[in-house]
């Protein structure tokens, strides 16, 4: 299915209708750069589907979306951003999944006066000194879910954690984030290779370390491998991780091995508010699968944009920025606000992996951090 044709159809619809746009904003052209092919395409597809669901529900001809595939290559993402800014003349960019791609695209895009709404990545450089008035993060600052895991470990009384993450910037940030809230002693600290698939050596170290808890950040296939091998190793030390390894998309591939594991997330399908309930239901109806964290972030991003369009014209950058900052939309997460560095202030929950019939999913069992912001906000001069 080709979503570019949807974009084209929307554009055509926009041309054919002479009636003015909704609210008093003008038309807005959005460029979505996301990962739709190769490994990691699942996340991009979810963000896109969540975003386009909100666009479809809004049923407006004022919004035109152009979608391009970055193949998870930063160089391609940079070139697509150039194309969207130079040729497509978009007003707003969005869609990037990975921090390294965001770091390649966002500074240049915002410097050229475009708005960027991040539906997933939240590198620390863009939250602190490198914050920008036109950059809004609708998901989380990268450290947030790890901080929440640390806070949860502390509240559970864990005093000797073994922590591991891949050896790359997001992995290093993850361990720093965990330690920031956790505060206890460490039984071990290990960096694995990015893309590593065998964790026997690390699991042996965990078993020998005498730890009372294990924190890991291993996104994608790495987390699947780790959880399966950990469950089979017979090590009984409780595991905590951020939601990325327990997302709807990959839980089915982990299977039993994930049952009962606690993980931290700013969203879950059982958050009790009408927006979320409607979102979960309509997403299932539209695409025939349960929505993921990423889908909820895409959906929220689109609704934030639509709420700003209703209040201001994108050509009036100051007014549009103020409208975005106000964040007056119904989030699937319930309460949602932006801090001064344009990153979310939100609750982060602890979830547990459960089984509903044949399907593995999560349920919320507590709140790890309330109205949480991020530590980099203090460095942001806005």
């Amino acid at each position, binding site marked *: *299915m*080709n979503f*570019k044709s949807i974009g084209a159809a929307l554009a055509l619809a926009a041309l054919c209708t002479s009636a003015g746009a909704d609210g008093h904003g003008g038309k807005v052209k959005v460029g979505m750069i996301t990962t*739709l*092919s*190769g490994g990691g*395409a699942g996340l991009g597809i979810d963000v896109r589907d969540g975003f386009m669901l909100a666009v479809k529900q809004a049923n407006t001809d004022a919004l035109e979306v152009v979608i*391009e*595939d970055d193949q998870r*290559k*930063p*160089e391609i993402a*940079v*070139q697509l951003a*150039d*194309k969207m800014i*130079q*040729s497509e003349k978009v007003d707003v960019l969005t869609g990037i999944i990975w*921090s*390294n791609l965001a*770091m*390649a695209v966002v*500074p*240049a895009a915002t*410097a050229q006066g475009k708005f960027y709404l991040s539906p997933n990545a939240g*590198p620390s450089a863009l939250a602190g000194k490198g914050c920008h008035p036109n950059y809004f993060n609708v998901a989380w600052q990268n450290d947030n879910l790890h901080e929440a895991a640390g806070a949860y470990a502390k509240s559970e009384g864990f005093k000797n954690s073994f922590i591991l993450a891949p*050896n*790359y*910037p*997001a992995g*290093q940030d993850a361990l720093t984030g965990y330690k920031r809230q956790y505060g206890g002693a460490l039984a071990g600290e290990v*960096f694995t*290779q*990015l893309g590593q698939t065998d964790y026997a050596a690390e699991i042996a170290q965990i078993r020998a370390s005498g730890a009372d808890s294990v924190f890991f950040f291993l996104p994608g296939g790495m987390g699947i491998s780790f959880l399966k091998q950990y469950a089979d190793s017979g090590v009984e030390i409780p595991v905590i991780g951020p939601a990325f390894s327990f997302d709807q998309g990959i839980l089915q591939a982990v299977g039993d091995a994930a049952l009962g594991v606690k993980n931290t997330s700013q969203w879950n399908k059982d958050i009790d508010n009408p927006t979320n309930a409607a979102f979960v239901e309509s997403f299932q109806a539209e695409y025939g699968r349960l929505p993921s964290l990423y889908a909820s972030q895409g959906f929220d991003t689109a609704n934030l944009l639509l709420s700003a369009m209703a209040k201001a014209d994108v050509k009036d950058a100051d007014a549009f920025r103020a409208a975005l900052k106000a964040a007056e939309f119904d989030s699937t997460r319930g309460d949602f606000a932006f801090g001064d560095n344009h990153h979310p202030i939100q609750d982060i929950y602890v979830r547990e992996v459960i089984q509903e019939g044949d399907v593995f999913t999560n349920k919320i069992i507590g709140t790890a951090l309330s109205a949480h912001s991020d530590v980099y906000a203090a460095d942001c001069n806005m």
Partner: protein
Amino acid sequence: MISEKLLNGALIAGLLLVVLHAHLTDAPFTITLATKVAILAVAGVGLNIALGLGGLVSLGHAAFFGIGGYAMGILASHAQSYVPLMQSPVLIEGTKSMPVIWLVALLASALAALLIGALSLRTSGVYFIMITLAFAQMFYYFAISWPAYGGEDGLSIYVRNGFPGLNTLDPIQYFLVCFGVLVLALLVSFRLRTSPFGLALNAARQSTARVQAIGQNPFRLRLTAFVISGAITGLAGALFADLNRFVSPTMFSWQTSGEIMVFVILGGVGRVMGPLAGAALFILLEHLLGGVSDYWHIYLGALLLGVVLFARGGLVGVLTEGRSGDD
């Protein structure tokens, strides 16, 4: 059936015409794409010296492409933050001057090519392919996990580096810079081919014994070719990083090596203009097929397969011989 000379002229003219048209109709992105074609063609010209002239099938040229990219990234990031690269024993500052960056990129990638070549050229054939691939992979993993220059995040440079007398931020001017480098690289490649060195290298490709008999050392010939080849690809890496104002470990990935090789083979191995024809065709395909389907890699793969099986000699070969016979 057209002569290769005519085709070469047409290729160069075609690239210039596309850019001129884009400039007049204010389509800056087309110029960006054309710049990308020119830069990737330079990388291909580099590989073609090892591949076409020396018969050295290197599947590790991403190493040099990446080193060139990081030469630019590291120097420019130090200049950007005003932190010297090294303070003792001598003070080395970063720089935002393209000529200096190019020089460093050339030297650094030549040095890497010397080391990798000295080891890899002890072998030949399939060994050589696998070893060059493995060495490039080593750089890739190192670049990802070494935290000093951004690791997997890479390095962003906020303003494109400067070239004396030009405004490199203007797409057309940067295109002309890259086009100039491409023309120079093509000239080097062309002169090399007809030089005594090139002839000896070509002879070594066909028969090692014959070259030894006339007192030439085939290892040294090949190593020299490999170093020149790596240096030119490294220069392309510096240009590519400047085009994106960004450098990351993906420049080191084995897919990058594969793609550079694809440009060369699509265009026609050993043909002077092959890399340009191949890069242009590849970028065009990527641009067109990407819009057709999320699974466009399938079509790309099928097309490549078709070229290998049924269009030997690549694009240039097919066009100049006027037939697409399968041998």
